């Protein structure tokens, strides 16, 4: 089990992922996460709201809740694969943010990510591993946005760390 204790080289790991991503592109479509998360949101909302969900047109016109949507299973796979990786390397343990400031930043960050994904139709994965390699105009627009956003985010993050 010594093999699993070492950290893998990120370039080699990502190169393997890239080749698999090309296969996925040929069978169903390139790696993406945001769409699957939206569908999960829809399914969770449907579970709690039932038929009431029909009153929100978004879930009829843009994303109709459907458990057979393949993108959901990429996310579940990542959760499963990471759990296996963490268990094999004995890195699994419950980590809880200690400071209130961390909780606040994660809450705001999560909300911004959710709103951002839906506004843009894409997440960071589709931006870097889907749209841009397909030379889609949206990839360049998204990259402009995410780099500017990460820069502003870094300034805020630094301010919070310093205080």
């Amino acid at each position: 089990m010594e093999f699993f204790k070492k950290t893998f080289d990120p370039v080699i790991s990502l190169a393997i992922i890239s080749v698999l991503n090309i296969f996925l592109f040929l069978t169903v479509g390139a790696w993406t996460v945001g769409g699957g998360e939206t569908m999960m949101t829809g399914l969770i909302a449907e579970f709690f709201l039932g038929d009431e969900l029909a009153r929100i047109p978004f879930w009829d016109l843009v994303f109709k809740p459907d458990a057979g949507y393949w993108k959901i299973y990429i996310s579940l796979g990542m959760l499963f694969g990471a759990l296996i990786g963490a268990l094999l390397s004995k890195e699994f343990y419950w980590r809880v943010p200690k400071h209130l400031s961390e909780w606040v930043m994660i809450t705001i960050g999560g909300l911004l990510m959710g709103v951002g994904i839906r506004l843009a139709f894409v997440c960071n994965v589709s931006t870097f591993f889907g749209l841009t390699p397909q030379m889609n105009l949206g990839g360049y627009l998204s990259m402009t946005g995410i780099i500017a956003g990460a820069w502003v985010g870094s300034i805020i993050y630094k301010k919070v760390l310093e205080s």
Partner: protein
Amino acid sequence: MSVVGQCLAAFIFGSIVGFLVQRSRFCNTAALRDAMLFKTYRNTKALLVTMMILTVGFTTFMTFGDGHPLQFDVGINQVIGLFLFGIGMVLAGACTVSTWVKAGEGNVGAIWALLFTFIGMFLFSLVWSYTYWPPASATMTGEPNLTGLQFGFANAATLQEKTGIPALFFGLVQTAVLYAIYQAILRKERRIAEQRAPASKSVLETHIVVESKS
């Protein structure tokens, strides 16, 4: 491919990705944040290599009309949306991939971030139901739509259609640009290493701490 087959392929792909990302500590957020804040490029280099491989791979198959490229009109909403996303991912310390991967490692903060991503999406669905913007895919035409602030649809395949030049050619140009950025980062790393070389060991140690944080 049947629905079950699609979901199974997606799950297997996701599992391998989750495993490799967990073991390699790759993080898309860190690729941007660390380059800007700490001038360390471990993840940025991996991101660039991935994009080079994918550009060649995708445009090769798109030249022959194979594969399933993303099909939707793009516009101002991509810039605004990813701008908000960019701020969010740095604040949360995780992007869409690392939230799932860190959740798999038992990180409660990542599970909390995921929960609020879902809440953010649901809140947006309420807003969308009033504004109907950005336009739903069903109403997209592929042409510029100025009232909807949409530029239409363009990718390597449409470039090939319009110019008659194979999509792969454009892909190779993009790969060359990405490679130039990669080389520039390597040069910058060498410069930083030279500056740090005469410095004491403690500087090196803080450098390692910063790296392992990602």
